[in-house]
């Protein structure tokens, strides 16, 4: 079997999927997921991913783990994790909790190596169970917003007001026409950002009231089954950010 034509055939595809020296480390992929794509390094990284099958798959698997689809209660989420694990343990990816530390590279290699078949011994299985218990606790306790690398105290001062998001939220039967939120005390304007799940911005707008119409060209990009995120931030008269709705999500129901 080793040197048959069949194996040579599949090697072509394996080579197309293999990592190259230009491929992005997990920290870069995580920052693509969690930080805005508005700087040159971010855009360069995004351009690499767009043309690289290896990085594209890594990012896709990370995204699935970082922005999981189910939201109908923790029980469903736990069932969902178990179902996914049974499908392909080796395909799991996750971002380090804090981006940019040296130990993350080592942690990733260790995490991945553990799930290669040669490690599938009973000890490794027991070990994996302990690890998964830890990740399950982290998963269940994980707040909706990933932790930011900046000082939490500073973040809290800046974002003391939380804006109540009114919609669109969750699964929708129809394309939403507007984004709505509740007025925040002291706010003189609001900035609205609509994003893909990987946080690529789809639309940015400013509003003075508590509602904004979604333009038709943007609405046409809301398609069934595709989850979108939005966030409203409030600004004071001096222009400083005084509050945020946090990330909200919605998806247009598949008409199946």
């Amino acid at each position, binding site marked *: 079997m080793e040197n048959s034509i069949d194996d040579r055939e599949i090697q072509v595809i394996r080579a197309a999927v293999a990592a190259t020296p230009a491929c992005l480390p997990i920290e870069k992929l995580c920052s693509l997921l969690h930080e805005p794509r508005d700087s040159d390094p971010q855009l360069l990284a995004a351009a690499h991913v767009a043309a690289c099958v290896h990085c594209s798959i890594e990012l896709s698997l990370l995204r699935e783990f970082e922005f999981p689809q189910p939201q109908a209660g923790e029980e469903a989420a736990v069932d969902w994790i178990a179902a996914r694990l049974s499908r392909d343990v080796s395909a799991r990816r996750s971002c380090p909790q804090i981006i940019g530390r040296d130990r993350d590279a080592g942690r990733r290699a260790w995490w991945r190596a553990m799930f290669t078949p040669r490690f599938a011994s009973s000890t490794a299985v027991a070990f994996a169970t302990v690890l998964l218990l830890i990740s*399950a606790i982290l998963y269940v306790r994980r707040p909706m917003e990933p932790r930011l690398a900046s000082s939490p105290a500073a973040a809290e001062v800046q974002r003391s007001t939380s804006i109540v998001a009114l919609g669109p939220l969750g699964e929708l039967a129809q394309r939403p026409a507007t984004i709505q939120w509740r007025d925040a005390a002291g706010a003189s304007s609001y900035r609205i950002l609509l994003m893909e799940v990987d946080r690529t911005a789809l639309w940015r707008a400013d509003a003075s009231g508590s509602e904004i119409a979604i333009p038709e060209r943007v609405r046409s990009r809301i398609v*069934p089954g595709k989850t979108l995120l939005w966030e409203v931030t409030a600004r004071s008269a001096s222009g400083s950010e005084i509050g945020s709705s946090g990330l909200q999500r919605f998806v247009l129901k598949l008409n199946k």
Partner: protein
Amino acid sequence: MVSKLVGFVFAVTLVLWADHGKKGGGADQPGFEVKVPNETQPPGGTVQVKFMPDPTSLAPMAGGTGRAAFDLASFSGIDGIELFSGTGDVLGAAVIQGTQVQVRFLSPLGTFGTDANYPLMTIALHVNPKASLGQQSILTLDPSTQFINASNQALPVNVKPGTFTAGGTVSISNVIPGGGAWPAGTVVRLLGTGFQAATSVTAPGLSFSAVTLQSPSEIDLTLAQGATLDGEQIVVRNPDGSEDTYFSYLRGVPAAKSAVPLFAATWPLFSTLTHTAAALGPLQALGPGQLYGLGLQNPHAHTAQIVLTLVSSGGASIASSGLNLAFGARVAGALSEFFNGSVPAPGTTVRVSSSVPIQILGLLGDTSATTVTPIIVGQVGNSW
């Protein structure tokens, strides 16, 4: 909360032990299980062979290669081939010779193999008009077919074959437009054979405001709601019980034929991702018999005005050419055919820009091995 966690850990432990047992059990490499449903269609009709994933095998796949050959007594040719995934990310190239097909594909989002509702691949075969009723033939894949999982390990594909029987009265040969997002009121043409006034049409993911029989070979469906048609399942049934199931996709009509026989025999298999600006390259130095190609397809209602520019490694524009593609048209050919016969040098990049979003696919042909490998193109600029 605690009980949930205990349940979770228990489930994970069971899953891992079960997996461990499988791996430790013997030399058998775990494969990807595929099932082919039986089909019955009349001579002169079309059969869409469906390669369905077994739900127990679902896992993210990064790509694969496959081969299939179909019996000439039952089939007179291949009318179409398509790969499916939940996100439409899968792209590939199929080389078709008679009733033989070889396909290479990639799934850059790793969503191929993760959805039990879609076939992994479909192949539309023209049923030999001379086939006799009751004549049977096996529908399967060559044992050399393999997938690559998300960790870049090769998995054998184990196929449970289906049986084709010449018979029945109805078949679907094509759906136009078979792909893309369309508003309410759009007329979708269902082409095939044996349609009658009493033929019923059902599509679980679609709703129709009108179903009109145009002829025994066409039924027009008017969408009651806007819909994305890629991968939609459509079932027709005649009162005699004959029925056919079809998964729709945009089957591009070749607007030109490549002068390179290998590319003339190549079906570009586009992902549903569209671009108004994309780049193929920088191109590598190639071995003897190898050449780069390009596939373009317009899924948009308006004609695409496309400009190709060859750019040096320093960013200078070396050559450019333009072409128009009507809705549903596609081209596939050697890069040199797009640039007046001159072969782009290694290090150059081909930039594609289009007036409307189109599907774009790079190809790497090997004329001595008669193979074509798909190449993912990079998006240029931000789309918003």
